[in-house]
């Protein structure tokens, strides 16, 4: 569905890539990384809003150069903040979107509007959460094959967030649709994502399925002197004890005097960003 090969983009103080990534049909892929890691840059590049300096992006087996309109008709895109005309009401905005998308599904749009209780008043007067929900509804209302969502759940209350995530699950059920969404709320990804792409300082550290992460990333804790020779992706030393992120087969740790727990995405982000740091006990 989405194939990215060797994408690079440079700014004076930031370089993205080279990024290689594949998004198969029927899966939800979470794009995760700290603020400024390059998630939005990558998403804007996939949307052709930022022309890359090198590399190839293929969506549905097509390239923007030849099939820009056909590609965009099959994408439902949500910006991090409101991009709609904020003096318009949701129904007026929907009339514009209906003109833009030949596959606009009014029944689904009305169902979602009712479900999420979006009020009929100028978009600027909606709360931040309602604006985000409205953008999400419009992306789900034109039978897109790929949803690309840039931080869609930030600013939403937990109940609406849960409902939106349920909608995402329902959306990919038929098996021929996919979702790519970036977030730094890792608990959202743990609920719905099948695949995770982790970006750090503009580079993809891994792009794999959730099971693979559960199998290969663990938090290990133990005495500092006993763990000095253990290779960790990041470690936090508190006087005599160390905890850190271990990547690899945990059967190799048999015999070590350490405790081992599965790493959450937040743990991975934390230790990847932090690297090795010592911390005095307070």
């Amino acid at each position, binding site marked *: 569905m989405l194939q990215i090969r060797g994408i690079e983009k440079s700014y004076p103080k930031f370089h993205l890539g080279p990024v290689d990534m594949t998004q198969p049909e029927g899966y939800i892929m979470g794009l995760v990384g700290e603020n400024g890691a390059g998630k939005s840059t990558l998403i804007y590049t996939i949307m052709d809003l930022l*022309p890359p300096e090198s590399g190839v992006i293929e969506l549905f087996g097509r390239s923007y150069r030849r099939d820009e*309109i056909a590609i*965009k008709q099959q994408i439902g895109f949500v910006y991090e903040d409101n991009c*709609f*005309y904020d*003096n318009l009401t949701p129904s007026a905005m929907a*009339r514009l979107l209906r003109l*833009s998308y030949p596959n606009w599904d009014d029944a689904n749009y009305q169902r979602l509007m009712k479900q999420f209780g979006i009020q009929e008043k100028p978009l600027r007067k909606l709360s931040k959460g309602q604006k985000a929900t409205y953008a999400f509804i419009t992306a789900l209302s034109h039978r897109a094959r790929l949803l690309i969502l840039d931080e869609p759940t930030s600013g939403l209350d937990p109940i609406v967030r849960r409902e939106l995530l349920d909608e995402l699950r329902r959306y990919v059920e038929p098996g021929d649709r996919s979702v790519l969404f970036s977030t730094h709320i890792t608990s959202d990804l743990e609920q719905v994502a099948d695949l995770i792409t982790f970006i750090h300082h503009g580079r993809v550290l891994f792009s794999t399925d959730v099971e693979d992460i559960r199998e290969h990333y663990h938090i290990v804790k133990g005495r500092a002197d006993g763990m000095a020779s253990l290779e960790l992706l990041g470690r936090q030393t508190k006087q005599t004890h160390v905890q850190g992120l271990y990547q690899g087969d945990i059967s190799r740790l048999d015999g070590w005097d350490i405790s081992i727990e599965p790493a959450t995405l937040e743990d991975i982000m934390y230790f990847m960003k932090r690297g090795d740091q010592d911390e005095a006990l307070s």
Partner: protein
Amino acid sequence: MKHFLRLEWQTLKEKNVLLKAVGYLLFYGVALFMIAGKQLRGLTFFPIVATISSLSSFTILFEDGKQMPMRRLLPSLPFSRRDIYRGRTLLKLMIWGSGVGLALLLSGLMHPVMDTWPTAATILIGSGISLFGLSLEHWSIQLPATAGIALRGGLLGGLLGLMIGTGGAIFNSLSRIDPQGFYFGLGAIVLAGLSLWLNQIVYLRRAL
């Protein structure tokens, strides 16, 4: 392109700005006559009306606060950048053409009382200036929202001030140098075309 123009037209209707633009024009026109009635004769009436009608219309019709639809919403919809740029440009040219037509009509209507009917040279020069103004205003699509608003306001105010203040002298000098207005009018059109073309190149290649 046809689809994009339909979307743009529907957007203007949904934003409810068409009547507002007409009202704004009337208000602007009356205010202008109150402030600079004496200067609005013969040489300057047509160029001023042609310029303010198109530039002030753009201010009302395409002002979207901080939303920047040309850089955010529209490129994310299923339209090519080329269609978006050309569609918006064509719409502005149509509004500009209507402004020139309106200016000509008003020049004819006001002529019995104010001697406002323009010569062919004045029409060419006035059209050239307002078209060049359009091409400069069109660069606002490349700018951040507040800078775009400043560009529109500056252009409108600047061109108006220039023409009200020294318009008569400028057009007198120009008509002595170029009595038919042909070279000046053509020059302005060529410059406007060049500016629109460069603007397109930037829009098609840039990060939005």
